[in-house]
C-alpha cells in the first residue's frame, strides 16, 4: 500500500464516518425533523468504499446516496471536515420514481450548494449543506406525495 492510497482512504473514511455520525445525531435530536429508517434487516447505513458512497433511508421512504470526492487539503479531520472533501453529491430517490434529485456541495471560496446544477446557496459548510439539501428533499416529498 503506498502512502497516497492510505491517505486518500483515510480522508474518505473520515468523511463517511463523520457524515454518518452527524445524521445519527440529528436522528437522536427529538426537536429535529430528520428521522432515519432502516435500509433492511437492522442495517441503517451502507458504505461502499469503492464507489465512495454512503447510503441511508429517510422516513417515510426516501433513499439517499451521498458520494464523497475527497480532497488533499487536510491531514486531520478533527479541525474542519470541509477540508476533507472537494465535492459532495447528494442524490435522493422518491418512491416509484427512477430518477434521483441531485444536490452538490462544492468546496471553494465561498463553498456552494447546488440544486440540479444551479447555484442555490453560497457560503455554506458541508454538514449544513447536507442538512439543507435533505430538508429540501423532505419538503418536496411532502408537497408531491
Amino acid at each position, binding site marked *: *500500500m503506498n*502512502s497516497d*492510497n*492510505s*491517505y486518500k*482512504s*483515510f480522508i474518505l*473514511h*473520515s468523511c*463517511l*464516518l463523520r457524515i*454518518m*455520525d452527524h445524521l*445519527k445525531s440529528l*436522528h*437522536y435530536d427529538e426537536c429535529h425533523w430528520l428521522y*432515519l429508517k*432502516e435500509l433492511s*434487516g*437492522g*442495517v*441503517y*447505513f*451502507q*458504505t*461502499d*468504499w469503492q464507489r465512495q458512497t454512503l*447510503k441511508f433511508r429517510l422516513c417515510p421512504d426516501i433513499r439517499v446516496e451521498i458520494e464523497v470526492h475527497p480532497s488533499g487539503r487536510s*491531514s*486531520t*479531520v*478533527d479541525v474542519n471536515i470541509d477540508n476533507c472533501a472537494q465535492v459532495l453529491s447528494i442524490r435522493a430517490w422518491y418512491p416509484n420514481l427512477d430518477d434521483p434529485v441531485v444536490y452538490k456541495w462544492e468546496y471553494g471560496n465561498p463553498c456552494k450548494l447546488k440544486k440540479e446544477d444551479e447555484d442555490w446557496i453560497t457560503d455554506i459548510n458541508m454538514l449544513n449543506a447536507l442538512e439543507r439539501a435533505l430538508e429540501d428533499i423532505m419538503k418536496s416529498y411532502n408537497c408531491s406525495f
Partner: protein
Amino acid sequence: MTTTTAVTIPWPEHITVGYTSDYFKPEEDVISKWRGIMNKASLLNLLDYPLNEIEKRVNELYSFVHTYEDIFIVERRPVSDNMLKDHFEKHYDHLNKLVSDKILLPRDAVKIGRYIYLYDCVYPHLSEDIIKPRKNPEESMRILVIPSKLYNWMVRLDYLWFKLLIKKKLDRDILGYLDENYERFMKDAIKLKIFLPIPPKKLHGRRFDLEEMFWRTWFRKVEVNWEYIVENFYREIVSFLLTYE
C-alpha cells in the same frame, strides 16, 4: 438504572411463541417476569452456558415482549456509541489490565484487539432495539441487531470478551474460531456494504511492528498507546481493501 449489557442476536429474530396462559396477568406480574427474562437473556449471565443458549433466550425475550405489546415499547434505532471513544479505547484499557495481570498473553491481546477493531468497523452501520416497559422505562434492555451472515463471528467475539472480562478466562476454542473465520467475516461485511475501516484521528505516516511494540511495552508494564494501535489496524485493513476484488 437496570439497563443491561447488550446482547447480540441474529436477524430475523422475531418469533411468535406465545405465553397465552399468562395473558391476563396483572401488569406488576408481567414486569416482575420481565426482570427475570431480561436477566436470563443478558450476556453476562450466559457465560456458563453453550453459545446457542444466547439465541434461545433472546428469542424467548422477544416473544414475551410481543405477547405483552401493550405493556412494552420496542424502539429500533441506529447504534449510538462513538466507536473510538466509547468502545475501542475502553477495550484497550481492559486489554492492558488483562496483560499486566498476566491473564492474557500479549500475543493473544494483539489478536483480540484486532478482532475488536474489525467488529467496530461493522458496528456503526447496525441498529439496536431498546425494549422497555411503558410505565417503568428505567428497566430497559438494549439489544444489538446483527445481520445473520455476520452473527456467528460477532456473537463469539462478544462471548469471548465477556468471559475474559468477567471470568478472567480465555476461551481458546472460540479464539480459534475467530482466527479461522475473520477474513470470511470481513469479506461478508464488505459484500453487505457494512464495513467501514474506522480512521484514527490522524495519519502519522509511519509504520511499526505492532506485535513487537506490544511485547516490549507490555513486558515493561508500560501502557500501550492505543492511537498508534488504531492507526496500525487501519493501515492493515486499508491494505486488505485495496487488494480485495
